[in-house]
């Protein structure tokens, strides 16, 4: 490859106990969108962190425009022309949008070295304009919705004049229009001759936007190719060594009795008048654009937040949990959306994480822990999820994103819930695991568990649910029968073109 912009060879990165990258290679050309593909824990994010100077590699060579480079920190990488949008949010919530964009490379008056806020605000306005984002540069980031935060992060990467832009799962917090916006930006970057390294678990995105791909598996280089000349099956085969059935599992709902009834549930500033019923064995999809307030609805049902209005009936009895503990006792489980902050205690071992919700059951009189019972329990449920780790004694923080998600799932299966609420359970999960999760959801439903499934991926919601509750800006716009509606209908309710009246009725 003559005109390679970036050439990575023999790259190795070792963490205590694990070889995250083992002798991998990668080559990138300018004006190309290059997909980096691999299952969870394959080492993609690790490579990104090396390229951006966050980690120092154990061995190997990185050539940028033919010159060997080694970064000591992120600034080195930026100055060399590499910027990244990281998988984990990296914003400063207490600072303004302008400042978030310019942190690390504030503009200064060349003579006095004084920071030039005026110029920075101007540039931010221009950048946001280019992204067609309606955000005041002076707003504090903590006051933005998650999607907007993500768009700001992308804007930030663009504010740097980069040769290579790395996007590590940039769409996992975006939906619909924003993904479109992002692709528009990617295309314009490509046209201006930049290289883009694009990491995603979503094949439709890869096939839409990428030109070339490289596949890693277990920290090793497997192969590469042109996207146009490959099929999804081929790539999946490279990724996991076998092909998988990507169709959603067959699920014929056997509805039991009504288990949950929600009436006019509201929370000030978050959502209003949500009403639905849920039956045993049913899968209720909850769809909406990011920021529609779905997470808040399920948080309230689970008792994390307080409702400001409305009633709930659990198996016919009025029910308003004061905390997660209460709802757990009543048989509700919630797999939260943010696995790092809400799902896991990162600095605790997998064992202790998985047993945390059921500690009481694994103890003597609910007070004194029994480590043998705990171990047995953890093995039983952990192995079911095929977690890839150095053992159950390692801290959860050392796992890759996808594997962390599996730990969260394992943690909640054991609570034997009657109602299982899943908030974005497949976010950042590779195809193989995703299929497993889908199968698992259906199995649960088949056992009579009532499931509420939040997902920002429309096909997933369509494919998995029996009914779909659609939300827009905190309002419930429709409850649709999944068998009888089309993706377009759902989307229309989600962006509320047909639903304005309904919302305000």
């Amino acid at each position, binding site marked *: 490859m003559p005109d390679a912009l970036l050439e990575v060879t023999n790259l190795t990165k*070792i963490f*205590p106990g694990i*070889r995250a990258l083992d002798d991998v290679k990668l080559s990138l050309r300018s004006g190309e969108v290059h997909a980096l593909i691999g299952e969870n824990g394959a080492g993609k994010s690790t490579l990104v962190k090396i390229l951006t100077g966050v980690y120092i590699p*154990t*061995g190997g060579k990185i050539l940028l425009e033919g010159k060997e480079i080694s970064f000591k920190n992120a600034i080195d990488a930026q100055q060399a022309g590499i910027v990244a949008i990281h998988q984990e949010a990296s914003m400063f919530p207490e600072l303004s949008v302008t400042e978030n964009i310019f942190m690390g490379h504030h503009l200064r008056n060349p003579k006095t070295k004084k920071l030039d806020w005026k110029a920075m605000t101007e540039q931010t306005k221009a950048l946001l304009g280019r992204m067609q984002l309606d955000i005041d540069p002076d707003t504090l980031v903590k006051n933005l919705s998650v999607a907007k935060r993500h768009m700001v992060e992308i804007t930030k990467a663009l504010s740097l004049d980069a040769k290579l832009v790395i996007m590590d799962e940039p769409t996992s917090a975006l939906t619909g229009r924003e993904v479109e916006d992002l692709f528009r930006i990617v295309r314009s970057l490509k046209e201006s001759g930049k290289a883009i390294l694009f990491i995603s678990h979503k094949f439709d995105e890869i096939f839409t936007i990428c030109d070339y791909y490289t596949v890693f598996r277990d920290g090793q280089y497997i192969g590469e190719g042109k996207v146009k000349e490959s099929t999804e099956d081929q790539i999946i085969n490279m990724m996991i060594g076998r092909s998988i059935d990507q169709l959603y599992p067959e699920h014929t709902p056997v509805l039991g009795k009504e288990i949950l009834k929600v009436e006019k549930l509201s929370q000030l500033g978050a959502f209003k008048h949500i009403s639905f019923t849920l039956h045993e064995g049913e899968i209720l999809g909850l769809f909406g654009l990011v920021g529609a307030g779905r997470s808040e609805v399920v948080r309230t049902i689970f008792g*994390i937040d307080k409702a400001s209005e409305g009633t709930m009936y659990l198996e016919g009895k009025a029910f308003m949990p004061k*905390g*997660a*503990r209460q709802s*757990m006792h009543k048989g509700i489980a*919630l797999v*939260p959306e943010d696995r790092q*902050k*809400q*799902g*896991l*205690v*990162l*600095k*605790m071992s997998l064992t*202790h994480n998985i047993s*945390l*919700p059921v*500690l*009481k059951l694994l*103890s003597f009189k*609910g*007070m*004194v*822990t029994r480590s*043998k019972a705990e*171990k*047995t329990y953890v*093995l*039983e449920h952990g192995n079911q999820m095929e977690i890839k780790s150095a*053992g*159950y*004694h390692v801290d959860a923080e050392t796992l890759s994103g996808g594997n962390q998600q599996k730990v969260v799932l394992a*943690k909640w299966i054991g609570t034997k819930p009657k109602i299982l609420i899943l908030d974005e359970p497949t976010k950042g999960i590779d195809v193989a695991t995703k299929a497993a999760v889908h199968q698992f959801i259906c199995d649960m439903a088949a056992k009579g568990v009532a499931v509420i499934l939040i997902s920002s991926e429309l096909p997933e919601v369509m494919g998995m649910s029996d009914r779909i509750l659609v939300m827009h800006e905190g309002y419930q716009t429709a409850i649709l029968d999944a068998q009888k509606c089309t993706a377009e209908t759902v989307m229309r309710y989600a962006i509320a073109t047909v639903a304005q009246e309904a919302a305000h009725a």
Partner: protein
Amino acid sequence: MADRQDLVAKSRLIDEMSVKNRLIEFFTKWEVILVIIFTLMVLFFSGRTPYFLDWFNLMNATFQFSEKAIMALPMIFIIMCGDIDISIASIIALCAYAVGTAAQAGASIPSLLFISLLVGTLAGLFNGVMITGLNMPAIAVTLATQSMYRGISIGLLGDQARTSFPDGFGIFGQEFIPNTIIPYEFVLYLALMLLFAFILHKTTYGRRLYAIGNSAEAARFSGVNVKLTRIINFTVTGFFCGLTAMLLASRILSVRSNIATGWDLEIITLVVLGGVAITGGKGTVFGVFVGSLLVGYLKFGMGLLKFSGTLMTIVIGSLLITAVLLPRLLDLYKANRKLRLQAQH
């Protein structure tokens, strides 16, 4: 069930895999380092003064640190959850005031104990409710209540002292178990230490403390009642302030408003020196036990050698820093070595 057996076998395998790891970990563990430092200290002082290794003196010296060591126990819980309480010395003063005043009015010993525990518990509860109820940082709230509680005892007591106590009141803080050289206070401390060790390491409550300390939000999503737990911690600490106030009043038989001044930081030092992470989520009761003995006997030994108080503060300050720095340096060394070994593969 056949696979249940299989699972148990597997779990044993996991254990064995980590045995080697654990051995390596062992000698770089905080507690072990503390024990080594402690031993060195004992050797040093025994060599320098004939009065150190004397059973009566060693036991008698426990009077000087038992109360602080007792307070360090509930403080472990607070720090374990990532909180801090810098009002404890003031709560002790407040309880001591109540004890002294009630004693002057002729209250019996059991009712004095009750009053002291009640006042302490209420003060601790107030801290806990303010912190969790309004979601304010513990250090800021207890900074304010530090002045408030101390202020109440100053306001009520002014320049007066309470010095009349019922007969036999001195038992808790001054006396030895009959026919032995073991102070009641120290026995009480040992018993409480074991109790706290059991709660922290063997009960679900203890496990939840670790979870909260590492990630309060994740704990909340896992059904841990974080607010309640934190309130309980502060309340329990208040309760123990009441107990400590009784012991202290009994030991010195005089209550003034400036009693126990400066204990907050000393007690926090014991906890931190004992290896409890100030950010929460890490530490053991055993570590704090060794840390408390270490500081207690270090002060005693230095006193015997007529070190000035000044030099003692320097030594204890340096010890705190070294004790935290040392395992880190060892960790660094270990990690580097491991990396090198792996790279050679």
